[in-house]
């Protein structure tokens, strides 16, 4: 059965091709094709997993291109991690597609939506199965592309377009670094294959500096895709997409690809202590940093988004500290309960028509299924035993406790915050008195196609943790482990730390929001600077705007100036210099006088003017530049050689 694994990504591919082909027929049957394909893929994945559990494995590759003495291959490999990921991806994708039957019903681009979902599923499955870095990179970009398409699904609203662009460009920043990393590793070893690469790295065949650099650059790709600090800014904005998409891509699968990459290339990382330190610290910083921002969000999806960033940080933290099994186990459990939470939030948004939690309240009386499944999901996220999150988070913190006490305490604090913000979200949404009576009156439970996936995911979120539960022998660790299977001894510090964290978080949240014993207003006014800082996302987005937008404006000015001088001759050039100086001083003046806010707005518009000039659109100029360059190169060749 494992030998059939290559078939799994091909099913969604076929479905994408079928749905995506242009057709004038306005049929809604396309959804069945997508669901059918991913359903069969899910059954196949189960078969593969069963095979792998019984000790099977499979791998095959064929030569794609030969360049000199290096052959580039395409191939797949199936091991424990792959098999588990296959099941998770196909299952979540299946649930999301079924759920979308209800959520996206009557959407203008229903067909396109299902086509891109299939494309995404194909790309993600390919990414999971790929046996070398180059192939993984190809699927990696495909995943990014389909994410872009889905975030911008409702592209009539410019804000959604901006969010899609932001997601695409931000992850691209990481991808460039990742590609350089791949090339460094390739230049050192002459292979892209994970297996060989890992063996060579473990055997010390790569110099320590090159290995560390390659691994860290590789990790930069994961930072972009998994929304780790400092490239996390795109994920909260990506919530502009349809909610089922957020569940599939921005919670369960795509953002987990970064974690998966680190897991897949783990031998490389493990051979470089520096890279492991970077992974662990970035993970730890992200975990606590995103958790603090989740504390103050009013938008229910934003809470989940920051929570996802934070949990991904957890996974990185675990992986970076040597907890291979722990980090990847959290990836699996998180996929289930976060998909559940997102779909639950989608159900709420579908019913109320708003994402603002301050306009909800008391919904559990109207939407019992959504409410109770949400509570199961949030309990799993908060780490309340015996639900899924408890077991996986426990493992990570246990690893941290032995490896790095500082990061352990960061993790515990983040866990407490997690419990706090998810309790807050739960209470504001489902309990208390309805704050918007008009909305409340119209609310009704979502249709069955939406609630059934919720129930299935809730059951999984509640039970999947037992796969990694040490009292039950941790079957997951038997399947996915690095080196020898080993169990860390549970210590009372970790047990009490974790328990105290979630109990404290839940109680404080209830005290503020349910009991009203602590006034919300008083906390906000007491911690005004902190609150403002958090509300503004630590000003990181603003800083990026300032740094990169402004930076490119400056560059554009210089380039645009050069262009104008070359084209229009020196007379114009003198004028241009004067104007440029005037513009620059004017810009500076406006900066100082009007402050940063106005400056950013002006800068963007002036900058686009500059870009306009840079891109003259005259193809002949471009060709001329090419020709002159070639001739110069030839001249250097002739004179020099």
């Amino acid at each position, binding site marked *: 059965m494992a030998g059939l694994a290559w078939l799994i990504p091909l099913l969604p591919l076929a479905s994408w091709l079928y749905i995506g082909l242009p057709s004038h027929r306005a049929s809604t049957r396309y959804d069945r094709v997508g669901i059918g394909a991913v359903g069969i893929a899910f059954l196949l994945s189960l078969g593969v997993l069963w095979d792998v559990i019984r000790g099977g494995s499979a791998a095959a590759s064929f030569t794609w291109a030969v360049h000199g003495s290096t052959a580039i291959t395409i191939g797949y490999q199936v091991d424990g991690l792959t098999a588990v990921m296959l099941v998770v991806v196909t299952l979540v994708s299946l649930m999301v597609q079924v759920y979308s039957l209800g959520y996206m019903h009557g959407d203008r681009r229903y067909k396109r939506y299902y086509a891109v979902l299939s494309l995404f599923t194909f790309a993600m499955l390919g990414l999971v199965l790929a046996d070398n870095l180059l192939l993984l990179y190809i699927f990696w970009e495909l995943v990014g592309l389909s994410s872009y398409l889905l975030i911008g699904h409702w592209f009539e609203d410019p804000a959604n377009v901006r969010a899609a662009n932001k997601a695409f460009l931000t992850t691209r920043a990481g991808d460039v670094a990742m590609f350089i990393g791949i090339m460094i590793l390739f230049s050192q070893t002459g292979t892209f294959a994970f297996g060989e690469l890992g063996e060579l790295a473990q055997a010390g065949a790569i110099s320590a500096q090159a290995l560390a650099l390659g691994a860290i650059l590789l990790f930069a790709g994961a930072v972009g895709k998994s929304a780790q600090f400092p490239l996390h800014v795109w994920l909260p904005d990506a919530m502009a997409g349809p909610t089922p998409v957020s569940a599939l891509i921005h919670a369960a699968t795509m953002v987990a690809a970064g974690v998966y990459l680190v897991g897949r290339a783990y031998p490389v990382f493990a051979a470089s202590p520096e890279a492991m330190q970077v992974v662990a610290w970035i993970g730890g910083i992200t975990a606590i940093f995103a958790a603090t921002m989740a504390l103050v969000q009013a938008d229910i999806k934003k809470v989940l988004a920051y929570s996802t960033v934070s949990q991904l940080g957890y996974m990185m933290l675990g992986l970076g500290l040597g907890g291979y099994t722990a980090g990847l186990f959290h990836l699996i459990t998180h996929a289930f309960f976060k998909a559940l939470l997102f779909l639950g939030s989608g159900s709420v948004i579908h019913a109320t028509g708003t994402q603002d939690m301050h306009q909800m309240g008391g919904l559990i009386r109207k939407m019992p299924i959504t409410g109770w499944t949400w509570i199961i999901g949030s309990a799993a996220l908060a780490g309340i035993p015996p639900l899924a999150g408890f077991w996986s988070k426990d493992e990570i913190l246990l690893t941290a406790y032995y490896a790095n006490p500082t990061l352990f305490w960061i993790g515990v604090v983040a866990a407490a915050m997690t419990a706090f913000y998810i309790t807050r979200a739960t209470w504001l949404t489902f309990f208390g008195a309805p704050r918007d009576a008009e909305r409340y009156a119209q609310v009704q439970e979502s249709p069955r196609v939406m609630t059934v996936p919720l129930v299935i995911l809730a059951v999984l979120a509640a039970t999947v943790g037992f796969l990694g539960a040490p009292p039950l022998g941790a079957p997951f660790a038997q399947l996915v482990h690095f080196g020898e299977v080993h169990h860390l001894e549970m210590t009372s510090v970790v047990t009490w730390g974790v328990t105290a964290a979630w109990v404290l978080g839940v109680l404080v949240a209830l005290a503020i929001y349910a009991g009203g014993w602590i006034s919300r207003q008083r906390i906000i006014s007491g911690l005004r600077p902190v609150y403002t800082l958090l509300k503004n996302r630590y000003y990181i987005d603003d800083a990026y705007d300032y740094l990169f937008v402004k930076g490119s404006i400056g560059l554009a000015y210089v380039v645009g100036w050069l262009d104008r001088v070359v084209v229009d001759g020196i007379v114009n050039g003198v004028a241009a210099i004067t104007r440029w100086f005037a513009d620059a001083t004017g810009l500076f003046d406006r900066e100082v006088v009007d402050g940063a806010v106005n400056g950013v707005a002006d800068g963007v518009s002036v900058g686009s003017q500059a870009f306009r000039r840079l891109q003259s659109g005259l193809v002949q100029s471009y060709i001329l530049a090419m020709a002159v360059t070639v*001739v110069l190169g*030839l*001249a250097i060749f*002739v004179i020099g050689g």
Partner: protein
Amino acid sequence: MSLDLISFIVLGIITLVSGYLVVASANLMHAALFLGLSFVGVAGIYLVLGAEFLAAAQILIYVGAITTLIVFGIMVSNLQDLKAGGRGVWARVVRNLASFRRGLVPLVAAAGFAILMLVIYRQSLWPAEAPPASGSNLATVGRLLFTEYVVPFEIASVILLAAVLGAVALSRRDDQPPAGSTGQAAPAAERKEGR
């Protein structure tokens, strides 16, 4: 000086001179016809080089199809040449000496390219003598085309199909003319440009 070399030089001069006139002649239609002559010259060089099939294909495709197509296109669309192309190359260079894009820089780039390539060819080592051509190579070309190169061959056919579809789709007149051009009724003859 062998017969081969003499015919090569004659054909080369034909090719280059008519190539120059493609760029330089004032009349667009003349330029198209010189283009055809230049293609014929290249076909002759193919023959000298022992590529009979290619020479035939060159005549068929370039002279027979592409040149005809361009001539036809010029006639159908009633294009008059633009003034800038209407003068001789040298007059244009002198007139536009100051312009970056149409003045000396492209001339220097193109001439520099040719000169540098010739210098490089002079400096390089070359096989002294070609192996003798072993009769017609038509059979070899045919066999290669349908064995080793069969995949590119099929892809080429798909490209051609796509190009035909694209050309038809582009040049088909919509039933509803765009709002701006309601005054100009499309003559019936122009409906057939889609090849």
